[in-house]
């Protein structure tokens, strides 16, 4: 029998704001435990939430880049549950009036392009973190993350494969990073996904029993979890065994999903509107201000790279995948770099250097102006390609000034052909056997002479020029 998996996603993204959503503590995930904590974060009574307008702006931006409708009247609701990392015993979220509704994201997979519907995006605060010391038998709580702003992006159940899910997450991540909404680093927990999955017979209208796998934070785990859970559902359907609608966790060691405790499934969150927070009213002008401040989005950028610079689709996609890389590229091109050459250097040398230094494409730092100077030297023939790589490494590793570095290390291309001519004449004179071999038709002998010359020039010779001059001199 043919089955179809139906998936919807809830993606939590921590917003890249300076301060938290309802208090003025710094929003900094790198801080030491309980460093960014005020009485409000610590769950003391007497504090009142005040909405950070920067959070609303990020949420508007998230809505705009996912083609959502932005709602005018925004209210907040309290969601009640007990857990020690939730210092107030309630989370402020938006249940009744989410900020964004009815959007979509276009994705590309090998099967072609597809539109994934966005049901809604809402703002909410994050909870703290529990740290367990199993040896000492104690649990500690870090409230730094309490009240860190989040948006939860709820898709429609439009996915039919893990590949579509991954393509969507990659696309969403790129859009949100370009829009400055969040850093979206999954490994750091700045982007987390809950997977809602059900299986039905192909052609069926009715959805199967749905399970939710919570808190996934890597693409690899998401792929495995979807495969595992799909199999589990199909197996139950085929054997006519009951499937329960429930929340499940993912065990990344055993690579299997597990039912969470009954209690967590039975929670009634006792939602009600937060009486401490008046509605946030968003007018057209505010939306337009946020829209005007958005940079060029990745799709438009990629299309421009392909059309204007004849950069291949794959390379263009690779460049725009990182807003940082694309920004360096744009700056280098704006300062006169030849686009295809700049793209080539960024995607090969720059990424290789970054990888060696343990940095991602988003973390690598490179002064575009220095790349421009380097490429100009190369283009003008004043630098050989192997030496250009050395200079690039120096720029990357020690922020070296390219021209000064070239001069200091004698990497200038020997462009004066009288000096090269003189050297080659000496080499020819010193190797009569090779010359005789060459003249006897052994072309390999030329390679030997060429190698000698390159060694003498310590790599700064222009290979094309040397071969040409050697041929010239030997022909005499």
């Amino acid at each position, binding site marked *: 029998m043919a089955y179809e998996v139906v998936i919807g996603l809830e993606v939590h993204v921590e917003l890249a704001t300076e301060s938290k959503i309802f208090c003025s503590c710094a929003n900094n995930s790198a801080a030491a435990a309980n460093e960014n904590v005020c009485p409000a974060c610590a769950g*003391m009574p007497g504090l009142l939430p005040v*909405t950070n307008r920067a959070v609303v702006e990020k949420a508007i931006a998230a809505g705009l880049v996912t083609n959502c409708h932005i709602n005018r009247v925004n209210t907040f609701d309290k969601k009640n549950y007990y857990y020690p990392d939730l210092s107030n015993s309630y989370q402020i979220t938006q249940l009744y009036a989410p900020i964004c509704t009815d959007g979509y994201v276009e994705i590309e997979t090998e099967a072609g392009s597809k539109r994934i519907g966005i049901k809604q995006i809402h703002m909410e605060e994050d909870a703290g973190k529990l740290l367990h010391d199993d040896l000492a038998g104690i649990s500690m709580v870090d409230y730094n993350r309490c009240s860190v702003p989040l948006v939860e992006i709820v898709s429609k159940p439009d996915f039919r494969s893990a590949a579509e899910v991954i393509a969507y997450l990659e696309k969403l991540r790129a859009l949100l990073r370009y829009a400055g909404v969040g850093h979206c680093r999954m490994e750091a927990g700045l982007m987390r996904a809950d997977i809602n999955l059900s299986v039905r017979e192909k052609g069926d209208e009715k959805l199967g029993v749905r399970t939710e796998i919570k808190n996934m934070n890597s693409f690899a785990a998401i792929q495995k979890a979807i495969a595992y859970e799909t199999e589990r559902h199909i197996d139950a359907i085929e054997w006519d065994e009951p499937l329960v609608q429930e929340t499940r966790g993912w065990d990344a060691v055993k690579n299997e999903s597990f039912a969470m405790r009954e209690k967590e499934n039975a929670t009634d969150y006792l939602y009600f509107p937060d009486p401490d927070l*008046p509605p946030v009213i968003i007018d057209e002008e505010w939306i337009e201000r946020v829209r005007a401040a958005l940079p060029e989005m990745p799709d438009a950028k990629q299309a421009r790279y392909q059309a204007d610079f004849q950069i291949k689709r794959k390379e263009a996609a690779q460049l725009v995948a990182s807003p940082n890389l694309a920004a360096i590229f744009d700056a280098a091109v704006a300062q006169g770099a030849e686009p295809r050459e700049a793209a080539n250097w960024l995607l090969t040398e720059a990424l290789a250097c970054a990888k060696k230094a343990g940095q991602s494409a988003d973390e690598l730092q490179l002064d575009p102006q220095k790349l421009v100077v380097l490429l100009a030297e190369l283009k003008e023939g004043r630098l050989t390609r192997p030496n250009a790589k050395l200079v690039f490494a120096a720029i990357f590793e020690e922020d070296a000034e390219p021209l000064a570095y070239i001069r200091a290390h004698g990497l200038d291309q020997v462009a004066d052909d009288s000096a090269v001519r003189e050297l080659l004449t000496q080499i020819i004179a010193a190797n009569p056997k090779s010359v005789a071999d060459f003249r006897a038709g052994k072309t390999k002998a030329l390679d030997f002479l060429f190698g000698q010359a390159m060694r003498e020039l310590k790599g700064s010779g222009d290979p094309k020029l040397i071969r040409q001059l050697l041929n010239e001199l030997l022909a005499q």
Partner: protein
Amino acid sequence: MDKEKQLQRISADRCNSLVQFYPAALQEMPADAVAIVVDDNLIQRDTVCAAGSHMLYSFRPPFQAEAITRAQAAGYTVIGRANIGEFNMAGSETSWFGPTLHPQDTAHLTSGAAAAVAQGFAEAALIVDAGGANLRQAALGGCSAFRPTYGSVSRFGIIAFLSSSEQIGGVARDIDTAAALVQAVAGHDEKDATSLPKPQYDYAAAADVAGLRIALVEDLLAAAGAPARAATEQAAEALAAAGAQISRIRLRQAALAPQALAVMAAAEGCNNISRFDGVKYGYRTANYRNIEELYCRSRGEAIGETAKCLAMLGSLVLAKDNYEPYYRKALQVRYLVKQELDQIFTSCDLLLAPVAPAEAPLAADAAASPFPFCDPAHAFGAAATLAGLPVAVLPYGTAENGLPFGLQLFADSGHDSLPLRAAKALQAAPRKGGAC
């Protein structure tokens, strides 16, 4: 009065007015400073703020209520903390510190603020009125009190119970002193998102009711006992004699205000005290093996019956299937109450009603039900509270046992000086039955 004598009297208080007393603050107080007490749910820096609950018996917050900070800046000195019911959800009989007894007759109850002011321990008290109950206790305790329009005084630093409608007010022996204290603490505060941007902060009003259109609320008159009703009618006559036009109105939707307020109080109360879980501060049970036991036993052992009942009722009205028929319905009623009162205030300036069906309750009666809403007096403050209106109360008339009845006067939002004008006029007018 000399400070030593004052100190002795406070120390020998038989009414249990204060849960904390700072003799040093009283002794070192500058000559021109005014001594006040504050309700125990107002957060004060570096002192225990228990809100009448065992749960917070050791809670010493590192910050302070905006109203206290402003009062101090205006020359008021806090000399103690007044007893309130646990989390201010009901009368002082629910306080972990025990009930506050009425200074005129210790068989009856009152609030710590009223008892402290009535006995002259302090010139005034900063109170948090929830549902009109604290105003009512002030008036029945022999004091005047004023609660301004919701949003006039920052709620920053209230150990919250009824967030949507609780508001800080002032209690004193006369309405002028109470209003002056409120004047000192009112004003916009960016730490409270519901703080009014440009409220009417001017509470100085003349004792002048000439031409004011004042309506007696028939429903509340009918709900009061005959002696309390008679006292209110006398007040209306006194106001008429001073030049006011007196009429009578009946409430339609606003008659549902008590039920709506009960639902909201339960829901918000449940949510506001849920942060007291034994994990972070305050009481923690000595006897637990896991987090569930820590939660259940800490709360089970340290929270009183009334707060527990209220929290359970709150969970009930907020449960998934009950939200629409209860909580949302209450929000709709609140909207209708406001609408009706708006309409009423197009044809009159002030409403006049008793604060309670009778005098201050007997301590013996107070324990009858753990639900504060079962107290018939609850209905009297509901409409003005739900609509966030400015209210002035004062003692008026006397019961057979010598305890005062209370009156309330309320006006439309932002018209805070109107109830003050009428209260001052009544205070100044000669009355039958003598002063309270």
